[in-house]
């Protein structure tokens, strides 16, 4: 295999760099004390925002590719998705290691009892499944089911901001902005829009049909 230095190569290289550099920045900030006297929350929050931002890019790729008629953009989607997973894994690791200080029993009870942890954990498990099944051989082996499984990312796009919303002390507008942004990104998908419209029509039909059914046959 020869390495081709084409536009995809450079785009991919740029994406890797853009995703890796914030981690270096984070490391330096924590090391130098610029992340505050107790950087645990800073670390977890920074990595959490990394998940949301990489996920936003991942989900923008296919609408962008269509709008700009640049189909090759899709070929960077797996890379971005894997960076989302990387940030999610680091976010979870930072929570377990630095906040819970490795107390696995506490982690278990938090996952069960705290809705925002439950939601976050569910999103992580989905991302984990997507990461494991990201190689080409898995795609070939799973066939049609691969597509269905990987639509799980849309669920992550909703669970992530909800997890963020429920985790803040209160009254924060930022999570709401992220949630609406992700909903907008989901609505960029024609098949999802069509599905929603179809579902809505069916609901309305049923609602308008019900009184007639209730009254019975007019004859």
């Amino acid at each position: 295999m020869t390495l081709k230095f084409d536009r995809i190569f450079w785009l991919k290289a740029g994406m890797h760099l853009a995703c890796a550099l914030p981690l270096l920045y984070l490391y330096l900030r924590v090391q130098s004390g610029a992340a505050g006297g107790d950087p645990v929350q800073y670390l977890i929050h920074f990595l959490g925002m990394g998940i949301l931002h990489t996920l936003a890019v991942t989900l923008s790729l296919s609408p962008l590719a269509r709008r700009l008629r640049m189909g090759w953009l899709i070929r960077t989607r797996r890379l971005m998705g894997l960076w989302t997973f990387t940030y999610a894994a680091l976010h979870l690791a930072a929570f377990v290691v630095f906040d819970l200080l490795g107390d696995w029993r506490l982690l278990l009870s938090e996952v069960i009892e705290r809705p925002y942890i439950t939601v976050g954990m569910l999103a992580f498990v989905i991302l984990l499944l997507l990461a494991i099944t990201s190689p080409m051989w898995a795609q070939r082996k799973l066939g049609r089911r691969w597509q269905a499984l990987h639509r799980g990312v849309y669920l992550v796009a909703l669970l992530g901001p909800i997890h963020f919303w429920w985790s803040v002390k209160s009254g924060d507008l930022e999570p709401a902005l992220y949630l609406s942004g992700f909903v907008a990104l989901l609505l960029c998908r024609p098949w999802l829009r069509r599905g929603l419209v179809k579902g809505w029509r069916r609901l309305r039909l049923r609602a308008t049909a019900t009184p007639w059914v209730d009254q019975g046959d007019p004859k």
Partner: protein
Amino acid sequence: TPLPYSGSHRFGIEDPLTPEQKVISHNNFYEFGTAKTDPQQHAQELSTEPWHIEISGEVARPGRYSVAQLLAQFPLEERIYRMRCVEAWSMVIPWLGFPLSQLLETAQPSSRASHVAFETLYDPKQMRGQRARGIGGGIDFPYVEGLTLAEAMHPLTLLSLGLYGKTLPPQNGAPIRLVVPWKYGFKSIKSIVRIRVTAEQPPTTWNQLAAHEYGFYANVNPAVDHPRWSQASERRIGEGGLLSAKRIATEPFNGYGEFVEDLYRDLDLARHF
């Protein structure tokens, strides 16, 4: 600047101190932003001179005191207290201050007095969080807090003007703040400009934002979880790096039960959290 004081009291809490550097660089002070590092970064320009604190309401002798007047009238002592945040982290901090009861006694609460209300400075020019809801965490400023009169008169309740032997840094609530060690940190209101003695329970900021999550009392209580996270344990911020922190069991009333539990004899603490 150094602040003179005499005597140091621990009230049976022998925990090692949280290093000064951490106490002044990890703060919740939404007037300057919601991140823990925002207050240190954005509060340094806060002008604390001149500063007056007004005491009014159900008192025989209302008044207006400058910080210098307070320092002249009420001798400072050191109080080493645990600070337990509702977010489940904690510190041990050597405050300098005087009991709030001394100021209240000077003002002479009337027979109708039942509560004490506190208010933080409202100055959007100086406090960026008050200029934009997005920065200030959606809080309706000014920040307000309150105590029952009995809590306010309790000898542990401190008006603090310093920590680690020096005047308070802006991010810790300069020039004067409340410290109520048996309650979650948000009760210990910072940069106070007004104290009002009232005949009814005053509104409090976090309670107004989410009443089912933050009660008026907000006593530290491992048995009553926050609806979204556990309060059974806390991460103690002490010496050393990231991995040297410890997760310790949270104590009822933050370990000050022997001094304060009498205040709540007739109160269902699960309902009045």
